[in-house]
């Protein structure tokens, strides 16, 4: 059992690596989108699962970065360079996270939930009410960013297969970096804050600074995901910043199970596929989606990764 469990992520990774050779363009694009959402979900897991900070405004950082490829282009028919616009997007999201985090982290618990939601809504109104990038209508990203080094272009972001493998690399890289981060002293301090902040403070940790650092890193990674989401969709509008986006990614993290990053990836796959499935059944798929979410909360407090434990518990109670 445990050997099989250890092998499972590797099998999943192998399946993702061969998918473009087997599946059609539709699925390649769908899974690329899911992998972007998985990166987004992992960044939120760093806050919710690891540090114990429930943010309901994480789309602010995702959404801000998604506007960067549009805003960084000199005009709408010329491409930006990936190597300048991506760092710009990540830096913008990190800065915004630093600013929002420095205020929101003055509060805790349920206040924190409401305050992060409110600040992300403020960012939403910046894009919705002003004329920036088409205002409430949004705007098209006519030309995808170019990833060339000198005259050599190793990666064509307009090509579905290229983009797919780029996103797979992004997913693996983000996972590896976050794993290293969690194994470090910094990661242990964050877990300590989650389990008992008072004690961490008594031990001499400046918990505010640790939380702010986690919030900023999570914002930067969310920006990474937002940037590529905009590149893939070729379209940005204020919905990228909306609170439904924030709730959606929070759903992914909770559905999958908290704090181990795998859960975030599982949750991203489960939620996007469930949405896809429900919306293929009926126009009124949101009622099914809502019912699904409610059932998961009521029956599986540990998320989908906790299915096994819930099942064992149920069997033990019966037998």
């Amino acid at each position: 059992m445990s050997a099989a469990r250890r092998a499972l992520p590797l099998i999943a990774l192998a399946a993702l690596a061969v998918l473009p050779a087997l599946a059609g363009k539709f699925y390649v694009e769908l899974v690329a989108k899911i992998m972007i959402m998985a990166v987004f979900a992992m960044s939120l897991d760093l806050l919710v699962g690891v540090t114990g900070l429930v943010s309901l405004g994480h789309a602010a950082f995702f959404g801000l970065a998604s506007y960067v490829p549009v805003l960084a282009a000199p005009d709408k028919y010329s491409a930006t360079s990936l190597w300048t616009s991506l760092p710009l997007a990540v830096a913008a999201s990190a800065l915004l996270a630093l600013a929002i985090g420095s205020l929101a982290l003055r509060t805790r618990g349920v206040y924190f939930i409401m305050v992060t939601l409110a600040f992300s809504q403020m960012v939403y109104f910046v894009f919705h009410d002003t004329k920036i990038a088409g205002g409430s209508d949004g705007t098209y990203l006519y030309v995808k960013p170019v990833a060339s080094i000198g005259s050599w272009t190793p990666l064509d972001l307009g090509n579905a297969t290229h983009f797919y493998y780029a996103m797979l690399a992004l997913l693996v890289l983000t996972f590896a970096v976050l794993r290293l981060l969690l194994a470090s002293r910094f990661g242990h301090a964050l877990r300590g804050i989650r389990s008992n902040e008072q004690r961490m403070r008594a031990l001499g940790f400046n918990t505010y600074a640790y939380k702010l650092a986690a919030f900023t890193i999570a914002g930067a990674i969310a920006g990474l995901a937002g940037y590529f989401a905009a590149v893939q969709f070729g379209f940005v509008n204020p919905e990228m910043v909306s609170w439904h986006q924030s709730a959606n990614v929070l759903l992914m993290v909770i559905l999958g199970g908290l704090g181990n990053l795998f859960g975030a990836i599982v949750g991203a796959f489960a939620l996007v596929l469930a949405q896809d499935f429900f919306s293929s059944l009926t126009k009124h798929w949101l009622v099914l989606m809502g019912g699904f979410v409610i059932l998961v909360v009521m029956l599986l407090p540990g998320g989908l990764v906790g299915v096994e434990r819930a099942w064992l518990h149920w069997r033990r109670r019966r037998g």
Partner: protein
Amino acid sequence: MDLSIFLIQVLNSVQYGLLLFLVASGLTLIFGIMGVINLAHGSFYMLGAYAAFTLSSLTGNLFSAIAIGIVLAVVFGYLLEWIFFNFLYQRDHLQQVLLTYGLILVFEDLRSIVVGDDVHGVPVPAALSASIPLGSTMSYPVYNLFISAACLVVAVLLFVLLRRTRLGMMIRAGASNREMVRSLGIDIHLLFRVVFAIGVALAAFAGMVSAPASSVYPGMGNQVLIICFVVVVIGGIGSVPGALVAALLVGFIDTFGKVFLPDYSGMLVYLLMAVILIWRPEGLFRESAV
């Protein structure tokens, strides 16, 4: 700015502030007493507005629609607490956020199935359809004054209930120390159910009474929900007087922001919240009694 325009904006601010208070007071009570963060609270406002639309076209009279609507809202709130919220007291905020978000999706979609996605208007009752002339060109609709008056009456009733009755005493005690109330032999579950039903009825009433003045449209609940979070954060969670002060403050800032800074009005209330957070992170009325 000439005086009549200024007066109209003041009246609009008060009206918006009082409506926000009715929704936010339920939100803050439910959190203060039950410890539940309820994202679906905005949906009750939306459902109230749609109930006013449906019931007033059935009965032909807004006032009887509101009367029926309040009864329905209380029953609905009571059942909802019994089926779903009952179950959230032992869970952390995260699960509460998730479940109540699921409820929003269900309510929005059921609304779409039953009434459709069109924008509707609710006719203003004939008795209140006049306008009061102000100055030579401006006028102010009587119905908007009625909204403010009705909200004010409900707000006063709420304060009387909380301050002067035995039930109010139990609610205030529950907000400050839940365990103690339980150990004194008060049926805390019944208390929760009553508070929840009151909260739902307040939000639904706000939705019903404001329906003729604004249109009835999909997603109207979410708008109100997020602004009410701002109100609750500014006022201090669990504090009803705090919610009143904060709601009026938000009403004035938003209304006058639309006049002076139309492009940035959406952001102003959030900036206000940021300032309050720097100054007093626990809100204006921290830890005061309900």
